Structures are given as structure tokens and as C-alpha cells.
């Protein structure tokens, strides 16, 4: 076997080891890459299937389309998109997170009892009903949600606003949604908004970092709250299990079915949701924080017009918070 053949065989063997699939890339053009939840990078060819935790990144000339059930997602150039799994009211739903850049969504057939997919940026969650919408996230975590058809409830910092067709709302990272504004049909070009956000972010990098800090803390707060609920449930469960151990026959069976089992199911789903926010924080650390660092450092090298030491100290403090409070929840394959 010559060297070339050997390495072809090597590649094919290793490729068969890695199969993680769910939503499917149906079209891609230009530079589009995928980092899977094992940390491996792939080209986003049509037919490639995404699984929970996978991240799609498009370059300046790249875009792609993804189908997930009846939902169609278009990922714009210069975008980082993450596909996740989330549990809503006990039901598993897909999570589409626009970490950076822009995604456009067309959703169909969401019935009253169906929670629909979870659509989010680092700072915003959008609840949708039969909708066409665009979600844009800037490098410093600000978001813009614009609705073309249907209705969207945008939630951020514990507040929510309803956005109807041909309306939009801006969410500054760490804050509640702003005022809903009208968007004229055919004038939905968001490049100006992204440019404006990038400029504002370079003009005041410390403010951008403050927003990132707030967002990271919000993720950590959600992880902590879910973990607290989980641990409280475990304490209650310990008492209930002791009671269960003292029962016999049908009484035991009924107590398990009516009292213990629903709590066990709830505990599992809490773990699932903790995982969702942990992956969101990781995604923010990996993509948004890195993007902030590179852009600010480049700007500083050219202009030297702000306190780099102060920025660097604050940046490292956020990373330390991530490492202390999120890293313990990660598993090896995430890193």
C-alpha cells in the first residue's frame, strides 16, 4: 500500500467514527464551515446533517440554508449560528441561536400545544407563531429582531414585547427589549445596523465588554437557578425516597407513579436545560468574546487611543468568571 492509499484509508476509517445528525444543510455557497460537538471541523456541503451543539460559521462570501422539520433557516454571510436542543414545558424542541451575524427563519405549522423552536441570540429569546423573521446579533451582543410575517414575542432581561408583521425591536445586551418600530416592506437591509453597531463597539470597547459581562452573568444566573432547583429537588427527593422505602405493594407502586416519577422526569429535563445554557455560554465565550478581543486589539494596534490594560483586565475577569462558573459543567467533548 503506498502512502497516498494509506492516508485515504485512514481518512475514511476516521470519518466513519463520527456521525452526528439531525437538521440538514440543503444549500451552501462560499465559505461555510461546521464545528461539531466533538470539536471537529467540517465543510458544510448540502446533505450534511447537524446535531445538537453543532456550530455553523459563514465567511464574508458564504451563506447556507438549513431545514429542520418544517422550519427553514437561512444563515447570512459573516454569521455564527448554533443548533441546540432545549426542553420547553417537558417537550424537546430545536434551538436556533444566532451568536453573531444574521439568520432568517421561515416557520410553519406551529400548533397551540407545540412550543415551537427556541430562537435566540446571546441576549434575546423569541417565541414565534407561524412566522417569517430575521434575527441579527452584533459583535457586542446587541440584537435586532425584525418580523416579516406573523407574530413574535421577544424576551430579554425578564421583560417581553410583542412584535407584529413589518415591525422590529432592538435589544441592547443585558437590557429589556427597546421600543417596537415599524419596518417598511422591501427596506429590510440590516447591513447599516450591523455597521453602526460595529462602529459604536469600536468607539467604546469597554461598554461592549460591560454588555458581554452582563450577558455572561445572565447565562450563569440561569445555570445557577436551574441547578439550585435541581439540587432542591434532589433534597426533597431524598425524603420522598425514604418514605417510598417504607411502603409495600400497591401503595409503593402508586406512590412511585404519582409522586416520585414526575419529579424524576422533571430532574432529567432540568439537566437538559442546564446543558442548553452551558452550551450557550460556551458559544458566547468561543465566538463573541474572541471576536471582541480580535477587533479591539486590531483597533488598538492601529490607533492606541484607549486603555488597553484596563480592557484586557476586564476581559480576563470575564474569562475567569466563565472558567470558574461554566467550565465545571462542560464535558471533554465540548472543548
Amino acid at each position: 500500500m503506498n502512502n497516498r492509499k494509506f492516508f485515504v484509508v485512514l481518512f475514511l476509517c476516521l470519518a466513519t467514527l463520527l456521525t452526528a445528525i439531525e437538521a440538514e444543510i440543503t444549500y451552501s455557497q462560499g465559505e461555510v464551515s461546521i464545528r461539531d460537538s466533538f470539536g471537529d471541523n467540517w465543510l458544510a456541503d448540502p446533505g450534511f446533517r447537524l446535531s445538537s451543539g453543532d456550530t455553523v460559521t459563514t465567511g464574508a462570501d458564504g451563506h447556507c440554508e438549513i431545514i429542520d422539520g418544517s422550519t427553514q433557516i437561512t444563515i447570512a454571510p459573516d454569521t455564527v449560528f448554533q443548533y441546540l436542543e432545549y426542553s420547553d414545558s417537558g417537550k424537546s424542541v430545536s434551538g436556533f441561536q444566532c451568536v453573531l451575524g444574521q439568520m432568517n427563519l421561515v416557520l410553519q405549522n406551529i400548533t397551540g400545544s407545540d412550543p415551537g423552536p427556541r430562537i435566540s441570540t446571546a441576549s434575546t429569546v423569541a417565541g414565534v407563531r407561524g412566522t417569517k423573521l430575521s434575527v441579527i446579533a452584533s459583535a457586542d451582543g446587541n440584537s435586532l429582531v425584525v418580523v416579516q410575517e406573523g407574530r413574535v414575542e421577544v424576551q430579554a432581561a425578564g421583560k417581553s414585547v410583542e412584535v407584529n408583521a413589518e415591525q422590529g425591536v432592538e435589544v441592547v445586551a443585558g437590557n429589556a427589549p427597546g421600543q417596537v418600530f415599524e419596518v417598511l416592506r422591501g427596506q429590510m437591509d440590516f447591513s447599516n445596523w450591523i455597521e453602526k453597531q460595529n462602529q459604536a463597539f469600536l468607539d467604546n470597547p469597554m461598554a461592549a465588554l460591560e454588555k458581554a459581562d452582563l450577558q455572561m452573568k445572565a447565562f450563569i444566573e440561569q445555570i445557577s437557578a436551574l441547578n439550585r432547583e435541581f439540587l432542591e429537588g434532589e433534597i426533597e427527593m431524598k425524603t420522598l425516597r425514604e418514605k417510598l422505602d417504607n411502603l409495600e405493594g400497591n401503595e409503593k407502586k402508586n406512590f412511585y407513579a404519582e409522586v416520585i416519577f414526575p419529579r424524576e422526569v422533571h430532574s432529567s429535563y432540568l439537566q437538559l436545560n442546564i446543558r442548553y445554557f452551558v452550551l450557550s455560554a460556551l458559544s458566547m465565550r468561543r465566538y463573541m468574546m474572541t471576536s471582541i478581543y480580535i477587533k479591539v486589539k486590531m483597533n488598538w494596534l492601529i490607533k492606541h487611543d484607549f486603555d488597553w490594560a484596563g480592557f484586557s483586565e476586564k476581559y480576563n475577569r470575564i474569562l475567569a468568571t466563565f472558567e470558574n462558573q461554566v467550565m465545571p459543567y462542560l464535558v471533554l467533548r465540548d472543548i
Partner: protein
Amino acid sequence: MKQSVIFLSVILLFLILFLSCDLPGENLSISERIAAFVTSLNQDDRSNIQDHFHPNMVNYNQIASASVFDTGPMKIANQNFAITQVSSSDHSGGGTDVTCNFTNGISTYPNSLILWMLQDGTNWKIRQLNLDIVGTPGDEDSNEFVLKSIQ
């Protein structure tokens, strides 16, 4: 050069043996997969339980990382699990739905478990798991444990 190719081949074989979820030669039928799953459930070391599930499952990564099994109804404290196949039918998304009776160490009263089995290469794996202690799977009550995919 020849020696280095042989050396790399040995390393590759070693890696495949230890990294692959499906060891060469493992071609489990539906019944064998369910039996192997029950064996894993009844062991204290759950580190390989993910191997019984199909990678198409959206929950797939969560099963490996979050303690879904060790916090849910298939936790170690409920051990002495048994799964008995009752019937099977074709699943609309391919593969087979296997309806089973499920019991644990707390009660021998059979509970409803439906396993959607799907082939992963030559291996049958669990694509979706629905366990309902009160009522039957899919009846939309809140007492259902679901590890599933999203269609």
C-alpha cells in the same frame, strides 16, 4: 518507509478499536440491543450507555454529558430494570417501533415503554424512548419520560 506504514496501521487499528462506538463485529439485532440496554441500566457504571442510542437523536449529546439517566426514572436507585417486548410495528420515519413492558426495582407492575429502533450502519439502536408510568406513551400527560428526536 514500509515499517512506518505498518506502525501507523497498527496505531490506526488500535484507535478504531478504542474510539469507535461500534466495535468491529458488533451487529446487534433489535432484541440484542434492548437486552444490552437493560444490562447497562442495571450496572452502576453508566459511562457507555450512550452507545445504545442512535446518533440522530437530538438528545444524543445530552445523554453523554448531562446525568439524564442518573437523575431520571432510569436512575441507579431504581435498578433491577427489566424490559419485555410485547409487539412491534413499522415506524413512519423508518425502522421499527417496539412496544414493551418496563419494570423496575420498585414495582413489578408493567409500565408502557415504546422504543423506536433504527439501524445505524449494521447495528440497531434506540432512536427514541418514551416511558409512561401513568397512562400510555404519547397521551400528552405530564408523566412521560421522553428521550427523542425532533421531526
